[in-house]
């Protein structure tokens, strides 16, 4: 029972303090659009050099998990995901807040994030080495199909016209080709500018497309931003627990999806939460409620994206391959300390691993009280701040946040231009989510396709490379399901008699 003594080592006062500090800082950073988990971790790396590997891991892991959760605040309260992982949280979180249920949405997000986070960490500690092999089974072609799957899911999910969702995704795909091609190194749509060579930064596009239309609407419409909650109502914790209990299978399914997607390096929280959302809607008895403020939508996305934290650590610790961008920074920090990850993390170095896992568990658990406390004030203050203060404050944050991503003023220009474009497109029914996901998934699809094509040429059988691998076939089946089922459903709605007979 050595494992337990290692796990308990996480409970030293210093480690506990690091976990609490890390989570609190992470929540604030995650809630501010533009300040990402990757950046938070990178800024703090020098501080960890004076620490033991366990303590460093606990601090960085706590910030990371807090940031992923914190992203849901801005998603729910101002319809702008604080991190890309929270994109799908806007689907139901913001409608809930509009209806005056912002407090309930924050409570649910806190509970689901804690549940998902715990699941991911437990998967890491129990099945880590086994699950790591999944990362290696995925080749370029599987990533290509996974990205295509993501794109079909977003189109099927969108409220309103599927065609408009496809148009949005196509705009995102087009934007993703600007700059330097990863595979091949070709320069596209740069028009001789070194700034365009750097491409459209995903997070600046996300801030522009979500946040600017919200700001314009806040100024253009006279009514309040969000419905104020009834007076004297708490955080509706009992109600939240009730909804969580009823949504327990949803939370479990979403946590499993989040953990598995996170093991694939390069996939990440945005895909995980999207797939979980889609599955939650598919399994739901009243799928029509999704997108209009359905609590299960928030439960699905938030449990799933926090499960990606533990899941992402699986390839990082077991194989030495970072599962997500923040993991890459954490891995780098460990290497600088002269600490090598790999199989010995579960052998010779298992003391460090288990103490870290213990710390991550503690960090995830303290997220519940800290999150409920911060959430209470976040919702109240966003509701009570007058628009004349709220709008400039958010506008200021979007600019600072966008600039800080890569210290590049041009990204701010791109953010504002895309924001204006996004506002116009939104009026014609083209929502920001398909555009942003096109931008995120485009490079994954392109890279996988070109690599698969090169492999196909080398082996002399393109068809076998793209369609002949069992994993690919599985994903293709999912793609067909997710595109054909909505078509079938709408056909059935239009032809009720024929379907009955």
């Amino acid at each position: 029972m050595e494992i337990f003594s290692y796990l308990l080592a996480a409970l030293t006062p210093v480690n506990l303090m690091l976990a609490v500090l890390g989570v609190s800082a992470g929540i604030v950073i995650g809630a501010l659009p533009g300040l990402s988990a990757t950046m938070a971790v990178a800024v703090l790396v020098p501080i960890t050099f004076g620490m033991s590997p366990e303590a460093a891991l606990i601090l960085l892991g706590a910030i990371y998990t807090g940031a992923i959760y914190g992203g849901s605040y801005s998603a729910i309260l101002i319809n702008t995901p604080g991190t890309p992982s929270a994109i799908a949280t806007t689907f139901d979180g913001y409608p809930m807040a509009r209806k005056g249920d912002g407090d309930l949405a924050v409570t649910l997000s806190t509970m689901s994030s804690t549940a998902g986070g715990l699941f991911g960490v437990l998967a890491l500690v129990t099945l880590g080495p086994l699950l790591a092999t999944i990362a290696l089974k995925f080749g370029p072609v599987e990533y290509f199909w996974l990205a295509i799957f993501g794109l079909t899911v977003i189109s099927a999910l969108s409220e309103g016209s599927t065609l408009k969702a496809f148009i949005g995704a196509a705009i995102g795909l087009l934007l993703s080709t600007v700059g330097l091609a990863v595979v091949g190194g070709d320069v596209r749509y740069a028009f001789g500018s070194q700034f365009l060579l750097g491409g459209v930064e995903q997070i600046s596009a996300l801030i522009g497309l979500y946040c600017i239309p919200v700001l314009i609407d806040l100024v253009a419409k006279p009514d309040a931003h969000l419905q104020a909650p009834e007076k004297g109502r708490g955080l509706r914790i009992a109600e939240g627990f009730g909804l969580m209990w009823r949504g327990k299978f949803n939370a479990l399914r979403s946590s499993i999806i989040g953990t598995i997607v996170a093991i694939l390096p390069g996939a990440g929280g945005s895909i995980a939460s999207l797939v979980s959302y889609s599955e939650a809607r598919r399994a739901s008895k009243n799928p029509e409620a999704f997108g209009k403020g359905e609590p299960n939508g928030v439960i699905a996305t938030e449990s799933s994206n926090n499960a990606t934290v533990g899941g992402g650590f699986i390839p990082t610790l077991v194989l030495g391959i970072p599962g997500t961008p923040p993991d890459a920074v954490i891995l780098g920090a460990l290497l600088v300390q002269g600490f090598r990850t790999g199989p010995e993390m579960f052998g010779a170095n298992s003391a460090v691993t288990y103490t870290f896992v213990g710390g991550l568990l503690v960090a995830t658990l303290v997220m519940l009280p800290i999150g409920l406390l911060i959430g209470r004030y976040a919702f109240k203050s966003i509701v009570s701040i007058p628009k004349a203060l709220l709008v400039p404050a958010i506008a200021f944050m979007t600019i600072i946040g966008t600039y800080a991503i890569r210290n590049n003023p041009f990204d701010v220009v791109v953010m504002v231009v895309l924001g204006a474009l996004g506002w116009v497109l939104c009026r014609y029914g083209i929502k920001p989510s398909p555009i942003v996901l096109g931008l995120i998934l485009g490079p994954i699809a392109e890279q996988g396709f070109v690599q698969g094509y090169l492999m196909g040429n080398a082996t002399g059988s393109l068809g076998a490379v793209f369609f002949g691998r069992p994993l690919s076939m599985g994903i293709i089946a999912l793609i067909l399901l997710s595109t054909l089922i909505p078509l079938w459903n709408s056909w059935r709605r239009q032809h009720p008699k024929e379907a009955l007979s």
Partner: protein
Amino acid sequence: MRLFTWSKLPCLARLAGACLAALSLIGPAHAADFPERNVQYIIPFVPGGESDISARLQQKYFEELTGKQLIIQYMAGGGGAVAWSQLNGMPADGHTIMGTNLPHIIIKPMDKSAGFKTEDLKDFYYFHFSPDALVVTNDSPYKTLDDFIAAAKQAPGAVMLSGSGTQSSNDLSHAKFDKMAGITTTYIPFKGTGEAVTALLGKQVNASWGYSTVVANHRDKTRMLAVATDERMPMFPDVPTFKELGYDLTGGAYRGMAVPKATPDETAQKLADIFGQINQNPEFRKKMDELGFVLVDEPFKQVPAFLAKQKESYAPVLEQLNAAK
């Protein structure tokens, strides 16, 4: 398109660094007049890569030596071009330095949208490189370099190799070696060493053009058939060099540091002296060795000759790569 000047806009990392400096009242008193304050060190890539890791290792010793902080910031985009094209707009007082990489800064400017020329960057020191290596998994049927060449000859184009990036050091070494050995193999570029080694470990490819650093991190699962260094690496005494096997292939991804062009030579020289001293620190050397890096010393005065030599070694391959496009 310069909307803001570099010095006016505060940024998160800079603020954080200032806070750090205020918090830690450490560092020996120094008589030297340079650096007067903390030095900004801009890495033109995302955090977590090899450029970042090696800079992080320098960070500690820079502080020991000067009593000032070395503050690392990231300015990723366009494979480094976004940062390098802006270097000359930054303060030229030696307190802003930027990481530079080979072959990037020689190859990038061949496209006009790169926005900078190699000569625009005032490199003051090249401090190490990640040697290229031909990497296979431990259970690979290729036991030696000759096995690999024989397999490639038997089925031209069918042997697939993963590698990090296009027109990167890996890509160039692949092209060079194929030419030297008279073989044709398929190079599949990945985004960074992490993805390239994942493809190798997952058996998506037969081998990998990687760096010795990759094998240092994955030595339980991978081995090198040969490494592009002048002499065998102390960490891998059993791995032959390409040279001793009869192929004149040495080099890899070199990393250096540059200042804006307007920086006085004297200041550049002082910076070169500081980083030269770091390169001599036994603890630093040991850590770099363990990660699989190979230290080089190309100080300010020698940089032009060093760059000219590297450029020459890329030329024939570049013609070949461009012709293939």
